[in-house]
């Protein structure tokens, strides 16, 4: 009798383990099917290669689903024309497309995104010779797209359009320098609800962020509702002997903001 019970328990455990394993496999297959469908929607029938061109750095488990830091890096910056960031299981999956210009350096780009549920994140580079190359990471976070921005909409919109820039490195002509750009903007996703009125705050998000150095393009970012509020973007640029960085941003309500910063070069 006791023996039988133990055997039954062992069988039940085995069954439970099988079910667990099966659903994990199903889950992976579902995610792959989803990506293949998304890839088709974004890039059509073009082949997307899996090669070591890009690397994607994300936290395994995000502390704040509305502020998930993402770092996209490449060892071959001169090959890259643009990078598209896709958060597979976000309701609006295409988070950003970043197109690099002659004064830009795609070696490192950091930004912060909203993640709605446990999902794969894909970065897909388009190379100057027309290839598409992907890389992916799995992130554990949920609820980022509908998490409220600040205590009230009014507070969230305070100082909207304020632009700040910090050049992080000593600037040497011809050598890539890193800068951090901060734009105050709630980037309302349209999925956030005011707790008291139970009304949804209409979507209002940054559509384009264009950065130039001495009138040469550094990068243009086409954004979406998955970019976190008050975007912080770290990027590389190639300075001349002396110059200015201009940042121009537009949002979906025809908001336009612009600011120019002097970039002092190291004098030695």
């Amino acid at each position, binding site marked *: 009798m006791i023996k039988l019970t133990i055997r039954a328990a062992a069988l*039940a455990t085995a069954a*439970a383990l099988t079910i*667990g394993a099966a*659903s*994990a496999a*199903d*889950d992976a297959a*579902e995610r792959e099917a*989803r990506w293949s469908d*998304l890839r088709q*929607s*974004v890039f059509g029938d073009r082949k997307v290669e899996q090669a070591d061109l890009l690397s994607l750095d994300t936290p395994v488990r995000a502390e704040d689903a509305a502020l998930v830091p993402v770092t996209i890096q490449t060892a071959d910056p001169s090959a890259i024309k643009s990078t598209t960031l896709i958060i597979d*299981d976000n*309701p*609006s*999956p*295409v988070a950003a497309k970043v197109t690099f210009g002659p004064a830009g350096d795609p070696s490192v780009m950091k930004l912060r995104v909203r993640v*709605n*549920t*446990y*999902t794969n994140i894909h970065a897909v580079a388009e190379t100057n010779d027309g290839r598409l190359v992907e890389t992916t990471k799995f992130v*554990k976070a*949920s*609820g980022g*797209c*509908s998490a409220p921005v600040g205590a009230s909409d009014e507070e969230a919109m305070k100082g909207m359009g304020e632009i700040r820039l910090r050049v992080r490195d000593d600037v040497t002509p011809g050598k890539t320098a890193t800068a951090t750009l901060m734009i105050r903007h709630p980037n309302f*996703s*349209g*999925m956030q*609800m005011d*707790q*008291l009125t*139970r009304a*949804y705050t*209409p*979507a*209002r998000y940054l559509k384009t962020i264009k950065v130039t150095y001495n009138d040469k393009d550094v990068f243009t970012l086409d954004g*979406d*509702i998955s970019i976190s509020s008050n975007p912080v973007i770290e990027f590389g640029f190639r300075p001349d002997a002396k110059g200015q960085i201009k940042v121009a941003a537009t949002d*979906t309500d025809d908001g336009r903001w612009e600011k120019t910063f002097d970039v002092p070069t190291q004098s030695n």
Partner: protein
Amino acid sequence: MRGVVIAAVVAAAFAFAAQAGGPGSAPEPDGLWRGALAGYTPSTLKGATVVDAAAVARLVDKGDALLLDVGPADRKPETLPETALWRPQHRSIPGAVWLPGAGPGDLPPEQEAALKARIVTLADGDLRRPVVTFCKPDCWGSWNLGKRLLGWGFTSVHWFPGGINGWLEADRPSTVVRTDPDWEAATKPPADR
């Protein structure tokens, strides 16, 4: 007019008070909660068992528990460009029945009747069937559904306040689910709460 304003101020003050204490700090209302669904809930539901992810997993393993997810559907922003992809994914516990929009305390009577009929059918008419209600943390929807089930005579009601977040954080398997078709038909146009 003035009465409305005062009522709104009182409601706002009450909602604020309910927010003040932290997760699980709200007192149990006598009936269904009719305020905003997002906000701190009580930590108890009189007549029901409050469960965590491990307890839900044990109920799932026994095989006869009915899992009811009242997590909200992602609401499509009106101002997205037409070309933007819109592919919301609702992740839930495998086997769960998703009933988006079934959480409000003030459901229209015909929807409430449809909800009851659907759940009784799902339980094969057995009111002793273990039922688990969940959505996400700080969500009154699953509390309200648990309260309703008790009112309808269900005797083994389990409320899982950690919801899908608690389930995922415990590294349990999950899957993408579609709205229960019967519930969808009963609530057309699709509820977005």
